[in-house]
């Protein structure tokens, strides 16, 4: 497989590609001299054809939802309908300056407002802010609001956030970023939060609990209302990690379950671009008691007109998370998606996400793979453990994951959740066909046959990709993230 040199390495001094500068923006207009470049920027000196070939080839190396099945658990790698992109790129949206006054921004503001309303409705929350620019920022906003709520009431002793051990790794990180101590709550044998342990852990120090429902074990937390009661009785608030919202969209609402705050990964559930840097969007929804603390700006409707709510309207806001209104372009894609689905369509998302996951789970179980919670119905994702294959054939979850790439499937999430040995967390999403799911099952069976014939064969996989098995230890220990002129070219892979 060819190893393409970096675009910089392809350059030769003086080589140029012509481009027409935009006529309506005079170069350097109005920029003070001291901010202008003294010399040309250090850009790769390449021809137009080199640029076209380089980036086309890179795009062909991509594993993406546009080219392959991508069953990455807890990530909801669903198809992004082209219509969402097209409408979000209407010139009126694209060319609007973020400083444009409200009077000429009513169109975009009405879209944002309607999306706020739709998200509030489908999650059962009292209000929504679209400003967080990623899932992590949404989480941060959520816990920051919990903190603001307690402090505003003079309730300063609450310094602990409870996090089940099946939680996303970002949850404890968020709690710590917000100044809280983390206390872990174990999971019982059926995959539910251990209620007795929760009771033990609750107290006057409890600020709240962060929960994913359905959990990362791919099962619905059955005693959620009881948990909500317990936490509220102890004076804590409930945070809903919306990573798995796809499973319950239009079917059950976190607000009805008793949650006080939810973050939604619009890039998961609402089909905006995902992976490879996003950009993401982590809208948050809140219950009544957290409304005053929402991050600003938020769009309000007054009669027929829309206006931004700012710090003046919400003096107890946790503040701003971006210079303007989050990743507006991404939020607009989610708006179009939500409008295309409508109320009924949202329910169908959950229907088919769940159906696909359960179909795939049943087929893999029938082929002899170990489903981790055979007694439970899967939500939108499920876990298989390759413990037996690792023990008997020496083929680990990582070996299967790498070999799947050769078969044209993105690997499922591997070794997460941490509670399950040699696990793959598989989330097919609602946008895959039955044939695609069958193909995946066939690949898994073939890989197991390969392992039976020659256990060492899988250790070298992938064979057909531009990059073979990586030295993950070295990659983690010797981070090499930047390139400067004069850096030696990457060595050809062995």
């Amino acid at each position, binding site marked *: 497989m060819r190893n393409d040199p970096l675009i910089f390495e392809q350059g030769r001094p003086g080589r140029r590609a012509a481009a027409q500068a935009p006529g309506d923006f005079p170069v350097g207009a109005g920029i003070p001299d001291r901010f202008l470049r003294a010399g040309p920027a250090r850009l790769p000196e390449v021809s137009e054809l080199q640029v076209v070939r380089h980036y086309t080839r890179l795009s062909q190396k991509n594993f993406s939802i546009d080219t392959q099945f991508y069953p990455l658990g807890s990530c909801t790698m669903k198809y992004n309908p082209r219509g969402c992109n097209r409408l979000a790129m209407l010139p009126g949206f694209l060319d609007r300056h973020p400083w444009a006054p409200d009077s000429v921004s009513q169109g975009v503001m009405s879209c944002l407002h309607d999306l706020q309303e739709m998200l509030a409705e489908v999650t059962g929350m009292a209000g929504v802010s679209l400003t967080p620019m990623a899932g992590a920022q949404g989480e941060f906003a959520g816990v920051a609001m919990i903190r603001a709520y307690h402090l505003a009431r003079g309730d300063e002793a609450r310094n602990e956030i409870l996090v089940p051990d099946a939680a996303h*790794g970002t949850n404890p990180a968020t709690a710590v970023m917000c100044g809280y101590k983390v206390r872990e709550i174990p999971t019982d*044998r059926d995959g539910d939060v251990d209620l007795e342990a929760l009771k033990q852990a609750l107290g006057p120090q409890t600020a709240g609990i962060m929960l994913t429902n359905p959990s990362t074990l791919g099962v619905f937390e059955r005693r959620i209302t009881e948990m909500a009661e317990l936490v509220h009785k102890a004076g804590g608030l409930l945070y809903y990690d919306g990573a798995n919202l796809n499973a319950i969209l239009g079917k059950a609402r976190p607000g009805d379950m008793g949650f006080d705050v939810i973050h939604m990964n619009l890039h998961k559930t609402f089909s905006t671009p995902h992976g490879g840097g996003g950009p993401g969007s982590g809208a948050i929804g809140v219950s009544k008691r957290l409304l005053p603390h929402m991050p600003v700006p938020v769009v309000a409707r007054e009669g027929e007109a829309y206006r931004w709510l700012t710090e003046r309207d919400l003096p107890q806001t946790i503040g701003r998370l971006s210079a303007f209104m989050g990743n507006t372009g991404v939020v607009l894609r989610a708006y179009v998606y939500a409008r295309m689905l409508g109320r009924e369509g949202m329910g169908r998302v959950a229907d088919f996400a769940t159906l696909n996951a359960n179909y795939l789970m049943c087929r893999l179980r029938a082929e002899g793979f170990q489903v981790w919670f055979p007694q439970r119905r899967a939500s939108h994702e499920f876990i298989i453990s390759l413990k037996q294959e690792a023990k008997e054939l020496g083929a680990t979850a990582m070996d299967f994951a790498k070999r799947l790439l050769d078969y044209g499937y993105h690997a499922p999430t*591997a*070794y*997460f959740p*941490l509670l399950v*040995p040699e696990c793959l967390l598989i989330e097919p999403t609602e946008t895959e066909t039955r044939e695609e799911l069958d193909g995946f099952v066939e690949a898994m069976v073939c890989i197991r046959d390969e392992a039976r014939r020659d256990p060492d064969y899988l250790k070298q996989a992938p064979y057909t990709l531009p990059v073979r098995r990586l030295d*993950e*230890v070295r990659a*983690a*220990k010797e981070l090499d993230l930047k390139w400067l002129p004069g850096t030696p070219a990457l060595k050809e892979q062995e």
Partner: protein
Amino acid sequence: MSNLPGDLKYAATHEWARLDDDGLVTVGITDHAQEALGDLVFVETPELDSQVQAGEGCAVVESVKAASDIYAPVAGVIVDSNSRLQDEPELVNSDPYGDGWIMRIRPEEEDDIERLMTADDYEQMLAEEDED
């Protein structure tokens, strides 16, 4: 089966502990734990002089698969940590009971360590987990 020295005590969270002649408790992770984690790429050793409760997370090991908390098996004060692990986290993989030790604790109570499991108990626990 993984290697389980009989002279050590074991926690359910897969740490081992040994009461030394100087009255300090040396702590590391078990052979089983290092094998389950896979190749370590980073060890965050605990802060010296910090006070820890038994069962309190005070160090972190990170492998290519996962990051995992290390819990203090006994209550006390952290008096030493293995500085070699900064550059050589792989020592935990290659020699979990020797050069791969993680920290030393001055225990509040010397017999606190007796609450921990013997090698036989721990082996039994691993066997039960394996049946799940």
